């Protein structure tokens, strides 16, 4: 990744213009031709630096009013298989294996979205049964959202 790529990334962090030729406008911000800008965006997508070009919705406003972070304790030899399987579930938006900590043996985390608390609980139960997990997950329901924002890179 070079300086020009960083200019592309900075431009893409701003509001995406809802106009006929949005990349032309962003290319101006990044001080390069539209063709060069498009070529670099495609390359960043290919390498995975851009994991998605698209839209993210405000889930509460489209009917998914409830979500829960589920922490699971899965034996090390099964964790990979269970994580893959849980990732297949549509209601699961995030699925990570994480390090454990003293007194905290949960190693697999899934974010589950649903139309109600009960809906989320049913999904968690279904995932538990489908994957033969004995211990129910810690259901870390949100009490309050203190911050939710996108990360801004290369501003230094």
């Amino acid at each position: 990744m070079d300086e020009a790529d960083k200019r592309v990334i900075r431009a893409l962090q701003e509001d995406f213009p809802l106009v006929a030729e949005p990349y032309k406008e962003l290319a101006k911000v990044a001080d390069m031709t539209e063709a060069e800008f498009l070529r670099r965006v495609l390359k960043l997508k290919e390498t995975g630096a851009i994991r998605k070009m698209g839209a993210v919705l405000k889930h509460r406003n489209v009917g998914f009013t409830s979500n829960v972070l589920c922490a699971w304790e899965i034996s090390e030899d099964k964790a990979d298989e269970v994580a893959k399987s849980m990732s297949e579930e549509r209601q699961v938006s995030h699925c990570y294996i994480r390090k454990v900590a003293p007194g905290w043996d949960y190693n697999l985390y899934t974010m589950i979205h649903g139309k109600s608390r009960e809906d989320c609980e049913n999904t968690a139960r279904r995932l538990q049964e489908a994957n033969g997990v004995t211990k129910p997950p810690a259901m870390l329901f949100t009490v309050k959202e203190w911050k939710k924002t996108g990360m801004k890179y290369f501003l230094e």
Partner: protein
Amino acid sequence: MEELSQFDRELLNILQENLPVSPQPFKDVAETLGTSEESVLGALQRLKREGYIRRIGAFFDSEKLGYVGSLIALKVEPQKLDEVANAINKYAGVTHNYEREGKYNLWFTLNSPNESFEKKTIEEIRSLDGVTELLNLKATKKYKVNVAFNL
């Protein structure tokens, strides 16, 4: 807030998966939907204004950009929670900060430009008045990061 029309739903389902990287991306989307570029742009401006769309554009893999990330769980004394949550919100690398049910009551994600920056931030947060425990739950493998709803 108006109800989403069938057209809105189809448009959002497509755009949640992919926004084309091409000179006229919304024209490409319009062709898939059998409509005009103008109606796609008009609908998106309205859906954004009405608060259905959080963000449209690029979403990055912070690690591929050289950043390091973690999930931090805190146990905070209840009477100090507001103060601690506000102090954590001030960090630019904190993108999500949630009060949650359970033994650890404050959970946040932290992105840092390098390991030593992360370490310094974590030590600062650990020493905040009211923080009694801190868990640094670094991801060892990411299986899915995709917030897309079937409308």
